[in-house]
């Protein structure tokens, strides 16, 4: 073979290695995500749906945390017309039903005006309050509650 043919052959060989090399060296037949590594030919089942933990009330992690909901709340109507949470948690019926009263901060409008009803800015409870479930952290972390840091 003359020099040109050798050079071309070498070039092709280099290109082949460059193309196939990465896939053979870092062979990965799957996807890595928050759920960990998942092979493409396997199913990856989501964790079971959690039922709310209706036992003890979970402790809050910081003073201003919206308290968690210790009971089931599926399909409670919260819309422009009605807010069923307030059926038990608003004053004065919360006394009768032994339900924690909606915080006074919820009766303040965004402009600071005190209202006699829950402010529209705090109307949709689930924007902040969630039911308590035994859910594990997706990513290991070193979060410490403000109680632990006092």
């Amino acid at each position: 073979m003359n020099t040109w043919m050798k050079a071309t052959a070498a070039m092709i060989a280099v290109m082949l290695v460059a193309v196939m090399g990465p896939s053979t060296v870092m062979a990965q037949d799957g996807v890595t995500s928050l759920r960990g590594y998942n092979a493409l030919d396997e199913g990856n089942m989501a964790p079971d749906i959690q039922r709310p933990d209706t036992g003890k009330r979970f402790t809050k992690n910081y003073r201003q945390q919206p308290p968690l909901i210790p009971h089931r709340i599926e399909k409670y109507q919260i819309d422009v017309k009605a807010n069923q949470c307030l059926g038990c948690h608003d004053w004065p019926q919360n006394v009768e039903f032994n339900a924690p009263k909606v915080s006074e901060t919820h009766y303040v409008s965004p402009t600071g005006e005190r209202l006699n009803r829950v402010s529209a800015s705090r109307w949709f409870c689930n924007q902040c309050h969630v039911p308590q479930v035994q859910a594990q952290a997706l990513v290991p972390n070193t979060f410490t509650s403000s109680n632990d840091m006092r």
Partner: protein
Amino acid sequence: MSASNNEKTSFLGSLMRPTAKYALGTLIAFGFIAGILFWGGFNWSMEMTNNEEFCISCHEMENNVYQEYRNTVHYSNRTGVRATCPDCHVPDPWIHKVKRKIQASNELLHHFLGTIGTREKYEAKRLHLAKNVWRVMKETDSRECRNCHSFEYMDFVEQEKRSYTSHQKAIDEKMTCIDCHKGIAHELPAGIVNVDGVPNMGNTNLGN
């Protein structure tokens, strides 16, 4: 009495004369069987208007209350045991059922008048219609609820604390289901979440 001159051949006249050809027993037997057929046919036809499919054949129902009902526990739940339109809105005992069916002619009338023919018209009348239903349920001590649910056979161990507390109170104070469970199948109108300090637990899914 027949006005015909020839009483022997007039139809009305023949109805009032004893038959010459047929035995009494034959007539009674045929009448009995015809009666069964009529009675069965009458009730069968009435029951054809007594199911979910018939109720939502009117667009007022299908587009409004049916869509709200689809999000509730009576539509779909863990066990698949359902309550459809007639289970809650049409009484089960025959005499009350027939009375309600006759009253339903009012609903037919308003369908043709278009009283709640559009979404806006429906929302405008929502509170009025809801109060009608609540009033009737209160008067009958929630008879339709009690077709399936019963205080006596409720297992308080299976219920959450706030449920058995409220149900015990309802038993003690002789309350009825609809006092608290307004909105159980269709959305609550505005201003009804709390009536006389009674929360309306309506659209909950607290079954196991």
